[in-house]
């Protein structure tokens, strides 16, 4: 009964909560985790909320009057050819890059398991591009792709293949950028798959071998099912990475003095252009929100597809 009376009194409830908080070292937990949560909210959550807010405004960075326009920025997106082209290019690029990266990484990871004693050396070699920043890596590829003096065209020409405008031809440039992206991220996914493969108990594979399973059957019935969580992780991460591609596209398509390149549009370069070249922050905000929703939808679909496979 006295306890019930206590519960009805709000000041007493607060006092109890405070006492519990104090007894559980709440101040110290708050002191340790508070700054982290604060930074997370300030650096991650607030910008997302602010982006959503300004997407409803005609927000120009240098203008003093930025009126509320409701859904007009989103309405404008429907008729924006440049954004549609960027979205199609981004989807095409993401599909190509995810498929090529993951297939190659998986294949190489399996090969490396068969040469276990020297595998770390190859893993380090494949990992070097991952730690190379995007911008210098893209600059190097820009030289390699140079139509007149680039190494790639030189090799092609040596074998009698005509020189190609890798970054100049609208039909070639997307493949040129996919090659760069695959080269850059391959090492990371080799490591991811290698870790997954190492965790498969060898007894399963040996038992299957004794039962007469072919390598392909072992891959299909043992390795792939056991790697499902790793594959899901790799698909989700690579989709997010490639859908947000910016630096290599920006560097490789930048048309500088004497280095012409086709202006390939992807969603993030369009957002950058609208936000930081045309200063249409509100419109760039609307594009960012669409990108966020699109990526979240794709990730949800991927999770659903993998869950369905498990059932």
């Amino acid at each position: 009964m006295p306890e019930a009376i206590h519960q009805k009194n709000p000041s007493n409830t607060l006092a109890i909560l405070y006492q519990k908080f104090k007894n559980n070292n709440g101040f110290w937990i708050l002191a340790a985790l508070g700054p982290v949560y604060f930074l997370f909210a300030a650096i991650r959550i607030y910008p997302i909320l602010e982006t959503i807010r300004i997407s409803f405004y005609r927000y120009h960075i240098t203008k003093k009057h930025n009126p509320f326009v409701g859904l007009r920025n989103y309405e404008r997106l429907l008729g924006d050819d440049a954004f549609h082209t960027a979205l199609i290019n981004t989807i095409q690029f993401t599909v190509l890059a995810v498929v090529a990266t993951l297939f190659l990484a998986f294949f190489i990871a399996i090969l490396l398991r068969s040469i276990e004693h020297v595998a770390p050396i190859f893993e380090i070699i494949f990992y070097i591009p991952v730690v190379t920043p995007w911008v210098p890596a893209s600059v190097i590829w820009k030289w390699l792709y140079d139509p007149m003096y680039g190494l790639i065209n030189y090799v092609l020409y040596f074998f009698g293949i005509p020189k190609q405008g890798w970054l100049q031809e609208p039909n070639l440039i997307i493949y040129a950028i996919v090659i760069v992206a695959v080269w850059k991220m391959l090492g990371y996914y080799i490591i991811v798959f290698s870790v997954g493969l190492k965790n498969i108990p060898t007894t399963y594979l040996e038992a299957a071998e004794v039962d007469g399973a072919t390598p392909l059957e072992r891959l299909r019935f043992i390795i792939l099912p056991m790697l499902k969580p790793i594959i899901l992780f790799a698909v989700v991460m690579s989709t997010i990475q490639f859908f947000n591609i910016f630096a290599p596209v920006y560097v490789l398509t930048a048309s500088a003095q004497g280095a012409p390149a086709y202006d390939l549009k992807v969603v993030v370069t369009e957002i950058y252009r609208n936000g930081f070249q045309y200063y249409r922050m509100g419109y760039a905000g609307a594009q960012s929100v669409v990108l966020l929703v699109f990526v979240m939808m794709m990730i949800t679909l991927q999770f659903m597809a993998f869950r369905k496979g498990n059932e």
Partner: protein
Amino acid sequence: MLKKLVCRVLVFLFMLVITLSAGPADAKEKLSIWLGYGETLPVFEMVKGQFEKKYPDFEVEILTFSLRDFEAKLASSMPTGAGPDLMALHDFIFPRYYDNGYLEPLPEDLAAIVKDPQKINPVYNAVVSREGTAHGVPYWTGRSTLFYNRDHFKEAGLTQPPKTIEELWQYAEKLVKKNANGDIERAGLTMRLTGPSGGIQKFGYLYYQMAGEQIFEIGKTPGTIRVTLKDNMDVAVKALLDRINHLHGDRKVDDWKLKHDAQGFSSGVASMLLRETWAIAFIKKNGPNINFGTARMPKGKVRGAFNYIQILSVSNQSKVKDQTWEFIRMLQEQEALNLLLKESGYSPLREDRDFTWFLKDNPRYEAVMQDIPGYNQYLEAPNTAYEETTTRVGEVLQAAYRDASLVDNPAGCKEVILKMQKVAEGILADNDSLSK
């Protein structure tokens, strides 16, 4: 024990932050300058030395950025009051800051100089002034000109640069060099085929000569823009056909796979180039063996040179306005302007200063420095949506360049011109700057 330790660490960190954030007791006042053209830095450095000697309590901080970074940094810092005291603005971004009230009007003595036609050409005064009040000092100009390779000309039996647009294309056809497979090894005229914003500007160079006006002209109402393509449809179609016909088939004089622009010209893979003043120094540096000359822009209905100017302006948020104006006065002295010309090759806009010494040593600059009657000097119309308009319209233009079905196809080219007009008007209307 652990709690005590954590407490001590937190107190130590707090003290450290306080100590580091406190400035030195004898800090000097700072005058900050931002530049988008790094090649002009030596002049600012020289004047900085003179200024700091004259005002020992001041420290001048000069930051240079690439032009795009400069524009982005300025756009994000001016509204928050974190911008520089002195900024050198391109004429096409000047309205963005003037129209939104970020610039300080000139003091009387500098205003008198800007208004004096003997000292500053009224064309430039018009750019920096609104309702009779100037908000910047026109500083230097870069002018369009024709660059031609003398050795290539000699090889093709040509004795002088083309004087008309018809001659320009005829010469380009004579100068182009192809290999046995028909692939172009040397462009007769290097065109701007990529980079949409620059592409529309370069297309506009010849359009201006042919139409007698620019693609984007000042509208009837102040602050608005008129798109002239539809009004000059025949000329616009002809200008587009000239380019497309010379990018495909037998008359082809340029190719996407070649090095382009000033770099292509300085590498010897282009015989002619239409570019601005800065390219003289660039070609001399990057192609020291290239024997080249410069000439005035080829004539059409009119003849004239495109100018882009730099304007020296002071932020109205500056706390050291008087000293900043003084710095600008020092930049106007003959010695500083001589150094500007010598180091960067940009032509100072002060007509009461003497630069004959420079022309004597550098005759290639005559085409971009000497004003002659009948040779118009024009600037782009002030446009707050400049980047977006030129980029989007340039994208339409450069997509058309790749379309071989447009060769000798005026009807197809007309469609392209109408699309360019529509795209431009859409953006301008969206920015409330379309002339009705």
